[in-house]
Structure formats: structure tokens, C-alpha cells
């Protein structure tokens, strides 16, 4: 069973000619089949955790370990991490002019699967997955994320999640900027992947509303660069009622 283990992770970022520590010792274990929600106020380091796991060059790991099934993730390049089974659905997917969605998806699937998918089954697979996400077939011929609306970008991220079938999926603020209908569609996509039981999900969010559609097994409150409290789904209800104030004022997180 695939397991992502994060132990005492420290991460810094360079900003304004100064080094700032964002993650201050994160411990978290995500197993295949589990869904963990990471919730926290803005600036608490949630997205930094997501991008550090994916290997974004902006972040420097200064301490701790991350392993996927015992393999050292921090030693891997960005593409190696993806091929090892990590997937990051980004909050701000990047425009790639000149590269069509269909070409991108096929190149990506070929890299992840280690061989080019058979054309006929692949076309069908993409078409059906797009239909389930309420995506226009013409979408496949557009350039990656170019001129996409906020909702289209998120659908496109979840389309990749469904096609690439990672071991560990990190969803960074996938709910941000979505209206109710889009949120439901996107959540259904995530749930289809979860229902296979083959993915461990790390759901990063500021708001509880996506948890109405995607039920977490564990909820972690993120504050000041580390996990301040962990619990079951009921912890989300508490946050909904009381907000993050108890954690940001230095109480429970210290």
C-alpha cells in the first residue's frame, strides 16, 4: 500500500533578499485510500507544503524527510516525483502557449505510464472523462490553460488527476474560484478517483464547503508552518463554527 511520509519538514523561501522559514517541522502520513484535509488560515504555509512536495524550485528544503513507499522524494526531480506517483492539482495552473490540451495529456500519460497509451482506447478514455467533467470536446484542441476561465482550469486539473491515476494526489485550493455547480462537478471527479481506493488524497483548503462533497477521513489544522491539531471530520465542523482564531493567536499551535 502506497504511503507518503512527511517527517519534520522544514522549508524556506527567498523573499526580498531575506530567507524566510515557512514550514517549521511538518509531520504527516498519508496512506493509499485515505483522504486528509489540511485546513488553515491564509499564509499558514499550506500551499508551500503542496509545492514543496511537488518539487517547485522556489522552495528550499532545510530539514526533514519525505518518502513515498520508502523512496526519498526530496532527492527526485520534479518529473521523477510525478512518475513515482505524486500529483499536484495546482491552485494557479500555468498557461503553456502552443501546446494543445490533447497533445499535453498524451505526452504526460506516456511519461507517467512509461509507454504511449494505445490511441483508440486513449481517445475514448479522454473523451469519456471530459464528458463526466462537463467539458466541451473542443477543449482538447485549445492551448493548455490559455484563456481558460477559473472553472475550466480546475476541471482541467481534475481531468489530469483522473487520467494519470497517481498514488498520492495533492489538491491545492481546488475549490477556490468555483461556483456551486463547478464545485460539485470537480468534487465528483475527485470522488471517482478516491472510490478506486488506490489514491491517498491531501486536500488543501481554506474553506469547509468542499468538505460537503469530499468527505475527509482526517482533518489537520495548519498554522504557523506546522500541523497544530489533528482530528476526524468533526474537527472541520469546529473550524466552521469557531474559525482559525484559536490557532493564529498562538494558543493551540504553540
Amino acid at each position, binding site marked *: 500500500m502506497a504511503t507518503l511520509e512527511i517527517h519534520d519538514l522544514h522549508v524556506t523561501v527567498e523573499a526580498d533578499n531575506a530567507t524566510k522559514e515557512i514550514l517549521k517541522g511538518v509531520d504527516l502520513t498519508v496512506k493509499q485510500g485515505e483522504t486528509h484535509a489540511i485546513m488553515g488560515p491564509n499564509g499558514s504555509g499550506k500551499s508551500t507544503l503542496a*509545492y514543496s512536495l511537488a518539487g*517547485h524550485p*522556489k522552495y528550499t528544503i532545510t530539514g526533514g524527510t519525505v518518502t513515498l513507499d520508502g523512496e526519498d522524494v526530496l532527492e527526485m526531480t520534479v518529473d521523477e516525483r*510525478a512518475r513515482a506517483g505524486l500529483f499536484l492539482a495546482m491552485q*494557479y495552473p*500555468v498557461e*503553456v*502557449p502552443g501546446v*494543445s490540451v490533447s*497533445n499535453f495529456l498524451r505526452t504526460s500519460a506516456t511519461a507517467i505510464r512509461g509507454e504511449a497509451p494505445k490511441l483508440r482506447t486513449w481517445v475514448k478514455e479522454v473523451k469519456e472523462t471530459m464528458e463526466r467533467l462537463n467539458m466541451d470536446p473542443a477543449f482538447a484542441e485549445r492551448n493548455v490553460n490559455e484563456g481558460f476561465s477559473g472553472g475550466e482550469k480546475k476541471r482541467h486539473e481534475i481531468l489530469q488527476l483522473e487520467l494519470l491515476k497517481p498514488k498520492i494526489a495533492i489538491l491545492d485550493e481546488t475549490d477556490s474560484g468555483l461556483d456551486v455547480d463547478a464545485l460539485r462537478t470537480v468534487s465528483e471527479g475527485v470522488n471517482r478517483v478516491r472510490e478506486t481506493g488506490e489514491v491517498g488524497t491531501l486536500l488543501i483548503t481554506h474553506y469547509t464547503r468542499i468538505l460537503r462533497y469530499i468527505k475527509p477521513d482526517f482533518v489537520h489544522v495548519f498554522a504557523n508552518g506546522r500541523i497544530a491539531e489533528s482530528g476526524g471530520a468533526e474537527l472541520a465542523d469546529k473550524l466552521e463554527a469557531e474559525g482559525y482564531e484559536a490557532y493564529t493567536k498562538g494558543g493551540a499551535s504553540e
Partner: protein
Amino acid sequence: MAEAQNLPVGSTTAGAVAVAAESTVATRMSAPPSFDVADFPVPHGREEEWRFTPLERLKGLHDGTAKADGVLKADITAPDGVTVEAAGRDDARVGRAGTPVDRVAAQAYSAFEKATVVSVPKEQVLTEPVRVTLHGEGGTTYGHTVFDVGAFAEAVIIIDHTGDAVRAANVDFLVGDGAKLTVVSVQDWDDTAVHVSQHNALLGRDASFKSVVVTFGGDVVRLHPRVQYAGPGGEAELFGLYFTDAGQHQEHRLLVDHNVPHCKSNVVYKGALQGDDAHAVWIGDVLIEAAAEGTDTYEMNRNLVLTDGARVDSVPNLEIETGEIVGAGHASATGRFDDEQLFYLMARGIPEKDARRLVVRGFFAELVQQIGVPDIEERLIAKIEEELEASV
């Protein structure tokens, strides 16, 4: 994390639509067009038409010091019916398509020994391309070539430039009434070559002209593709593709002069740049003269900057003297293949090299498909791959 955007980096994009009594295209030249090199002052580099060009790397083409001491091996494969002959300046076809607009073009006209005239008889439809290979074996040469395509004839001409050379030339295309001509000029020089050339196309009534300029090599390449119309109904498509590497200067200066009514023009130039001091310059001038009612024109330049240290200057310029036109537009954009795009593609399992290739192939694909000469299309894709392999 900030949303990544395609910002122009190390580049300038300036555009103008002038509706003026006085043409800036004409006034910004140092001297009116002339066949005599003495009519042009030696440029010092601050003139509008020379300000982007590194004069010190022109090996004396611009100041009269470059003596014709070189060897350029020319080989012309002409299908049946096509004639190839030598001609002097007194031949009416030589220089008819256009007049040199700068000192180097005038120098080439003043210095060539014999012009080469390649003629396709009227109504002849060629099934094989005319192939011209020019291989430099060092030193300076001056040349003048005329391609005379008769009325209602159809031809594809492929001109290949390879080797090491200091070359200044004028290339004329006389496209007869109703004729169809596609010209592909490939600059695949050694990285030591200097090449300055003016291409003059004169389109007859209802003629079609497609120019495909492909520049990969050379230390300095400066080309001037120009189109004029001799009668209404002409259609010009000017396509260009360049891949500018470290230290290379590649400059394409286009002019379409809509001087008669009811003609069309479409200009699409795309370039990729990589490496320190890679410098691409694109100047796109389109004139719509008062007489040119019913004109339909569009010009576009796109640049993809793959690494730091490269520079693009892109200047589209459209001048309109009549409002009675079908359409006129221009666009210029310089984007950067940046770390965020690379991260996004790699985060989907795509190795860095493949990510770069994916972006560059995608960037050029649409343009390559419009060339319409299959063996050239394949060769270009292979060449683009080769450039990418050699990179960084």
C-alpha cells in the same frame, strides 16, 4: 504563489498604425532607393534602418571595404522547360522587381559580375521544384538572381544557403499575371557567415506569391523581403521561421507596399531564441497607399524566448492612406518559456528536455503546416529538433 504570465523578457515590442500624409517608412530611410552605392552614405549605426544591426560584424559590406574575393558554389537544378542564363545590368529583367533600399543592397548591385536569370515559361506548371544551392567556401561575394515566372505558370523554388560566406545579394521575383510562385529560402549557414540580402517580389495581376524564409544559421543574417503589386488581385503570403542561438543576430525586415487596389497580404513570422546574446529583429512595414482600395492585409510576429540572455526587437508598422479597405491588422508578441511552464509540464511527469521540445514544436507547428512543401516541412521539423538538441 503568483500566477505565472507570459511577460516579455529582455525584449521590446513596439507598434504603430499611422494615418499620415507623410510615410514614416520612407522618411526613416537614410536615402531614397537607388542602384548606385554612392547614393547611400556609409551607415554609422544610429540610422533608423541600421540601429539594430551590429555593423562591426558585417565584415565591411556596408562601408565599401569588403572586396569580392570569395567563392560561393552555386548549383541550380532546373526541371525541363526552365532556363538558366547569365545576364548583365542592361537586361530589362535585372532590377525590375525592386530597387535597393540600403547601402548593402546597392553595394551588391554595384558589385556583382553577372546576374543569373532563371525563367519559367508562361503557362508552364512545374511538378518538381527548382532547387538552388549556394554553398559558401569563404570570402566575400556579391550576387544578383532573377526568377522570372511567366503568366499563369506555377513553380516552387527552394534556395539553400550553407557553408561559410560573406554574402550580399539581391533576389528578384517577377511573378507574371495569374502565376503562382512559392519560394523557400533557407539560411542554414555556418555560424561564421554574414548574409545581407534584399528580396524583391513584383506581383502581376491575380498572381499568388508565397515566400517562406527560414533562418537557422549565420553570425549575422539581415534579410529584406519586399512585395509590390503590378496589378490588382495579387496575393502575397510571407512566412518566416527563425531559431536564433547564442551570439547570433538574425534580422528580418519586411515591406508590403499595397500600391494598387484589391490585393491581399498576410505576414506571419515566428522565432525562437536561446542563449546569451541571441538577438532577433523583426520589422514589419505595411503600406496601404491612397490608390489601394479593397486591400486586405494582416501581419504578425511571435517570439518565444527559451532562455535568459536573449533579446527580441519586434516593430510592426502599418500605414494607411485610404479607409476603403477590407481589413488591416497587425500583432506582435514575445513570450517566454519560463520556469513556471517548465515546472507545470515536469509536474506531469514530462522530462525537462521533452517539455522544452513540446513547447517549441507546438509554437512552430501551425506555421510549418502552412508551407505546403512536404519535404521542406519534414526538414524544418528535424532541424528544429536538432537546434533544441544542441541547446543549453
